């Protein structure tokens, strides 16, 4: 299936949101691929859904929960094992101020 990229796909915006630096060649390739995906999804728009209630889930299951009983978590050593850098039992990240 080959189609042109979807008209509402802004690859620069998508790349920025995903924190990806793409080359011009990658942008062209991914635009094509993502466009194909979007066109594929667009086919769902052709289905007649008159009388079908909108749902966020495919299964009619609701009210899945657990009682509020706390149980032990990870030790701080285990929790931080994957951290590239740590100090004072906290994960060190580049300075971020929103």
């Amino acid at each position: 299936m080959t189609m042109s990229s979807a008209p509402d796909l802004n690859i620069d915006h998508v790349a920025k949101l995903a924190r990806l630096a793409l080359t011009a060649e990658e942008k062209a390739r991914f635009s094509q691929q993502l466009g194909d995906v979007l066109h594929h999804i667009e086919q769902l728009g052709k289905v007649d859904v008159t009388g079908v209630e909108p749902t966020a889930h495919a299964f009619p299951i609701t009210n899945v929960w657990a009682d509020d009983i706390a149980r032990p978590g990870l030790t701080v050593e285990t929790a931080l094992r994957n951290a590239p850098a740590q100090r004072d039992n906290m994960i060190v990240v580049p300075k971020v101020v929103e």
Partner: protein
Amino acid sequence: MNYEAVIGLEVHIQIKTHSKVFTRVAAGYGQPANTLTDPVVLALPGTLPVMNKAALDAIIKAGLLLGCEIAPVCKWDRKNYFYPDSPKNYQISQYDQPICLGGSVEIELPGPARNVMGEHKRIPLTRIHLEEDVGKLNHFATESLVDYNRAGTPLMEIVSDPAMHSADEAFAYLTSLRATMIYGGISDCDMEKGQLRCDANISIRPVGETKLGTKVELKNLNSISFVRDGIAHEIKRQIAVLERGGTLVQETRDYDGQTGASQSLRSKEMAHDYRYFPDPDLMPVKVDEAWQERLRAECPELPFPKQRRFAESYQLPYTLTSVLVWDRTLADFFESTVKLVGPAKAQAVGNWITNDLLRELGAAHLEIAASKVSPAHIAALIGLFDAGSVLTNAAKEIFIEMFATGDLPGAIADRRGLRAAPTDAGELEQWCRDAIAANAKAVAEFKAGKDSAINAFKGPVMKAAKGKADPKRVDAALRQLLATM
């Protein structure tokens, strides 16, 4: 030109649960860094969220207390953004189907004087939704340190309509909202612990204009007083900008409560694009009537309705009701005491609690729950006083000792010799007779119409009573005897 401010508040309140909202590791404040984590909190691969039933109960109860409509069905969505406070790179929140809709917060504006009730009004709410709190970042010169203890704590976001028009209204709104949540046992709302956080959206417009002006979001308002000060400051700043011909820009500003100044935060690099979509890992929640009814039955009477009832049922003045109703334990203490002494004595009970008990608790830095003085103590003291067994000053002294020791007032009065004298009417009459017999001159003056001559007898009587006689009773007894002479 006259301007009107339009203010909407977004209040985040942590729900008091044992475990986190989507996993069962303990939630809490003040623990060593990164000791309240588990694979779900850290978003390790393959982990799945599981809803905390108690968090749902709490937010539904909050909605019921505020008169919200509880959505029959609601769902959770992923709010996508990159920030190290959120290890999943999304926050689980509710986007287009929040659990609570509408509702309102009753507020009281400052009255003309402290002892006079102010105007009441209702601030309408837009929605309340349930989401997860994020981790805490500690910023240093060149790096930030991340603690995930807070991440995943159940968090309610309560959004008001842009319906407030002054810093005082915002202050009253937060005061009332906070009390409501504490009353309902939903949160302790300790702002120092970040359990209640507030952002304010503020704009101004010429009076009479219906379109909203450019809004500025004020962040980091970390005490209720700072909210009031920050909003007042922002309204003044916006008016000043317009008055000198400038234009307002939509921005986020940071208010520093210590310096009383605000500064613009760098705006985020682009307009928010959170790409919300339904979280496939969490199933929708359906809330039926029966569930709502169960929770409604647990809803306490709120401060303002309680205040109206106290005023009506017990004829209490505003100066007492406005002190008694804001702390649920205190209000319950008051009513327990009134049950013991009867509603006719409610004002005396209110006075003992608001003057003496609160004074002693304050001095001792104690909560009422830790008080050794119980409703039974105050009831007994009022009983002694009403029977004339102790006088005002003695009763005050007894109260202080009662507070310190937890002993009953009768025992303290006996031990400390604080009972009024005489204990029987015959003795008082004898003292009065003796005083009259010893002062024929004063008797003659009194009989001649000089009313103040009666005071000449009171000194000897009080002396005989060692100062413990009730002056009113002494006066009455003397008059009765003199009338028969």
